[in-house]
């Protein structure tokens, strides 16, 4: 194989006029000029590869950064926050010396191209973020959004995504305990595959991504580096190599969960022996990201010998090695006298580990190939000094018309028969139907600590077998609400996740988010984004739950059509004793059903308006975060003191959806009475926020209503757990069997 001369630093300095394919690598002209200005010369091919990938939207947050700052500026005082935004994942104190790290990320675009591997590697990436903090991963959650349920392409994408999440997560031994599955035509060409993970560690075991201490060794371990996910780097490669190399490479990375399982075990063993000074996983931008971030967060510089990177494909160019997104790799910084032990642990787990460099006392990141220097940069300029854009944003001109198209004016059912028919239609609609066909492809038992898993309101994991200490997590988002009003929509997502954690009895502590939007170059989308971030930051401040980290996914659009703005919010909570948890299912006949909160006529963006009228317009439900906080306090107290036996949050689908789910899960029905001041339709279908349905044992009724009364939370008795039907007095009766068929047959019929 013949080669053109290596593009070394020296060569670059001597050939200032060589044109590099910066545009093909996604850089704008002014961005490229900035690189030249930083370096004082043209970049080498390898340097250009690093800058282009680290300055991409995905890695640099260049469009979103100016807005995301609010999460820090408006962060509530919170003693529980141990590590905040900026690290691989945030860390929260949950008591008894335990710390919990959690994060949600997107893997949207790859999952559309190649559903199985895209979704699988999404799980792999988020799990490595958790390991990199020093924690043992204990659970995953997956908020998913697809195109119309009956669209033929949904049948390609969804089963692949679900199998990928299951195939990877199940093989890693991580219980899948929560998430969502939502269908909407707006996601047809842009499914949202968000993946969240939780990890647990002791406070003293928190690890950070930084390379400090001159002389410390940089160890790359895990899978060999191959040509997958190198995307644009192949352009560079084609200029430095002849045609004799393999040309077709997958743009989407391929996952190997078995390798990742080994990586988890050997990393945790190395942590336990205190062998690691700093650590970083290799995700997007691979070695470019890991080396520049480790070096820029540490006190010194770093020298890396790229020849020492174990390869799957010996023809890879240095640029490709730097950009490769091969999965299941991590980078650790280890003191010299501990290197042998670290390598021995990797060997025990049959994990390949190689010293590829060391920390220097300078401030440069220098990378060598065949003995020649091909990268010589200030790592901070790569990792942190990327461009920041103040993208123009403007409230779209269609927003007023959308909000004026009031869903409250849609025709409502005129007869009891029609009301009953609409109830059946609602619970059978793809968004409201049981997702069992999907969730039963995920292992939710592994690790033996799962207390609650979907379809419960939040997933719950025991973290201490002696005390029963546990954590809960819920993820929620509603693109329809956010489309009507992004500020309120983001707060509704936060409120719902917060409420879902509280209905299971856990105290909400902290937030992670995954912000899925269209193109930031569209001022209307940018306005949606700005509004959603402002709403979420304000909401988190008011609820006292800081945002600990998260992810932004932009350019989710097909042509001119953007997805609904879809902020997905994850709330993490803590429960002192998981034995006090509250399930969704009705437990016992005779228990009294109470509706907590106020019910108004709020149908904008509702499931009813979508299912019955295929309508999206008006305003989303009002948000009252003080009420949400009070409701949560009541739910937590009632759970702790044994005053309620089941609880279910009310959100999309309203009360009737909650009653049907609780009844079907418990195998026991309910008799409902429409309370004074409400009509049956509003009671059943309104989506007013700040509400929950609880089942109260008769012996606890007085104590419970006294508590609600004293605290000022409206609690309305609306019925009793009873029989094998759901009956709304004076309106209709549906048997559990009818409801079960309606609720459970939809998804298998569409997708199996």
């Amino acid at each position, binding site marked *: 194989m013949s080669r053109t001369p290596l593009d070394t630093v020296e060569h670059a300095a001597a050939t200032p006029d060589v044109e590099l394919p910066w545009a093909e690598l996604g850089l704008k002209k002014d961005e490229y000029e900035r690189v030249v200005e930083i370096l004082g010369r043209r970049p080498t091919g390898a340097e250009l590869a690093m800058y282009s990938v680290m300055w991409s939207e995905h890695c640099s947050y260049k469009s979103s950064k100016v807005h995301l700052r609010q999460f820090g500026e408006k962060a509530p005082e919170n003693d529980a926050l141990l590590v905040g935004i900026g690290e691989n994942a945030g860390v929260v104190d949950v008591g008894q010396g335990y710390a919990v790290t959690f994060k949600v990320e997107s893997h949207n675009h790859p999952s559309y191209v190649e559903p199985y591997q895209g979704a699988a590697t999404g799980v792999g990436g988020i799990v490595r973020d958790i390991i990199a903090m020093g924690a043992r991963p204990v659970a995953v959650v997956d908020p998913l959004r697809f195109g119309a349920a009956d669209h033929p392409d949904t049948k390609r994408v969804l089963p692949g995504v679900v199998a990928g999440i299951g195939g990877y997560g199940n*093989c890693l031994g991580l219980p899948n305990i929560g998430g969502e599955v939502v269908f909407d035509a707006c996601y047809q060409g842009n499914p949202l595959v968000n993946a969240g993970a939780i990890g647990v560690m002791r406070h003293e075991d928190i690890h950070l991504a930084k390379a400090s201490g001159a002389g410390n060794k940089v160890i790359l371990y895990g899978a060999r580096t191959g040509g997958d996910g190198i995307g644009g780097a192949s352009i560079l490669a084609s200029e430095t190599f002849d045609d004799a190399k393999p040309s077709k490479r997958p743009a989407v990375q391929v996952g190997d969960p078995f390798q990742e399982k080994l990586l988890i075990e050997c990393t945790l063993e190395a942590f336990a022996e205190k062998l690691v000074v700093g650590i970083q996983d290799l995700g997007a931008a691979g070695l470019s990201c890991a080396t520049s971030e480790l070096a820029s967060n540490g006190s010194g510089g770093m020298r890396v010998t790229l020849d020492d990177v174990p390869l799957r494909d010996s023809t890879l160019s240095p640029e490709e090695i730097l950009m490769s997104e091969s999965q299941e790799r991590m980078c650790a910084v280890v003191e010299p006298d501990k290197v042998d032990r670290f390598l021995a642990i990797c060997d025990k787990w049959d994990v390949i580990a190689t010293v590829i460099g060391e920390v220097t006392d300078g401030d440069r990141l220098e990378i060598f190939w065949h003995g020649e220097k091909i990268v010589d940069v200030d790592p901070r300029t790569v990792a942190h000094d990327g461009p920041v854009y103040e993208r123009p944003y403007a409230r779209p001109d269609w927003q007023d018309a959308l909000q004026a198209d009031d869903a409250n004016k849609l025709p409502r059912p005129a007869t009891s028969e029609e009301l009953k028919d609409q109830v059946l239609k609602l619970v059978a609609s793809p968004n409201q139907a049981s997702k069992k066909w999907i969730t039963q492809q995920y292992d939710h038992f592994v690790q033996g600590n799962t207390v609650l898993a979907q379809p419960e309101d939040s997933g719950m994991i025991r973290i201490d077998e002696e005390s029963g200490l546990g954590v809960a997590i819920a993820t929620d988002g509603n693109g329809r609400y956010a489309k009507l009003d992004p500020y309120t929509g983001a707060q509704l997502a936060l409120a719902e996740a917060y409420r879902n954690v509280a209905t299971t009895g856990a105290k909400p502590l902290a937030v992670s988010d995954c912000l899925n939007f269209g193109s930031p170059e569209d001022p209307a989308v940018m306005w949606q984004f700005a509004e959603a971030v402002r709403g979420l930051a304000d909401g988190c401040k008011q609820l006292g739950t800081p945002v600990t980290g998260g992810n932004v996914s932009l350019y989710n659009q097909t042509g001119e059509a953007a997805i609904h703005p879809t902020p997905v919010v994850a709330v993490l909570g803590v429960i002192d004793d998981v034995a006090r948890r509250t399930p969704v299912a009705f437990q016992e006949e005779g228990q009294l059903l109470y509706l907590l909160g106020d019910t108004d006529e709020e149908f904008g963006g509702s499931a009813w308006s979508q299912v019955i009228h295929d309508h999206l317009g008006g305003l989303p439900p009002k948000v009252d975060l003080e009420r949400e906080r009070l409701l949560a306090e009541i739910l937590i107290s009632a759970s702790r003191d044994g005053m309620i036996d089941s609880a279910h949050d009310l959100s999309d689908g309203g009360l009737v959806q909650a009653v049907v789910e609780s009844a079907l899960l418990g195998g026991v029905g309910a008799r409902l009475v429409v309370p004074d001041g409400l009509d049956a339709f509003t009671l059943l279908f309104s989506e007013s926020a700040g509400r929950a349905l609880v089942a109260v044992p008769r012996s606890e009724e007085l104590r419970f209503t006294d508590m609600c009364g004293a605290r000022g939370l409206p609690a309305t008795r609306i019925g009793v757990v009873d029989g094998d039907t759901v009956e709304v007095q004076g309106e209709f009766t549906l048997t559990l069997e009818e409801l079960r068929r309606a609720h459970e047959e939809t998804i298998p019929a569409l997708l199996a």
Partner: protein
Amino acid sequence: MTARIGVVTFPGSLDDRDTQRAIRLAGAEPVALWHKDKDLKQVDAVVLCGGFSYGDYLRAGAIARFSPVMEPLIEQAKAGLPVLGICNGFQILTEAHLLPGAMLGNDHLHFVCRDQKLRVENAATSWTGDYSEGQEIHIPLKNMDGRYVADERTLDMLEAEGRVAFRYLDVNPNGSLRDIAGITNEAGNVVGLMPHPEHAVEPLIGSGRTDGLPFFTSILKKLVNA
């Protein structure tokens, strides 16, 4: 006195800690065994737990079966050492020919995770003494390759000799022949099943039932009374 029960960790084993917990909850002492161990540390019984040993690459259990620890295990199992194979452990036992038949991919081609109803068909093995014959229990099931198959002669032999230990009830979750969920060897010391009894040992956790605990109390009683 109590019994020492080994749990083997292969690369890719997932339920090793869970199985150790179940053993502890039953009152026995769990002993961690590593797949590269060349001896069994004088344990009184061994559990091969669930997971994806070697990623289930090639065929579930096919590579793990050649791990160093399997040599003494096979030898001692043939001499009467009680061995329980759960899920991937069951697959390893068939690959090692300690139990007849084989496991194929689920007939519906999906991973399945559910709380599965079973009937105990043989309460006389080393691992089932605390159940009664015909007892119906719920044990979580979670697998990709759980379809038990064997030739007709072998199936007839298993039935005739009472070696079908567990059968799926209500739903056959993976297409296993004759609804077989678990089997035993002739001597009754080696038992394999696809469902996961270690995930049904504590109220509230997992399936919220304790129907799986008798596996571990059965073997403890048998060993202590021996």
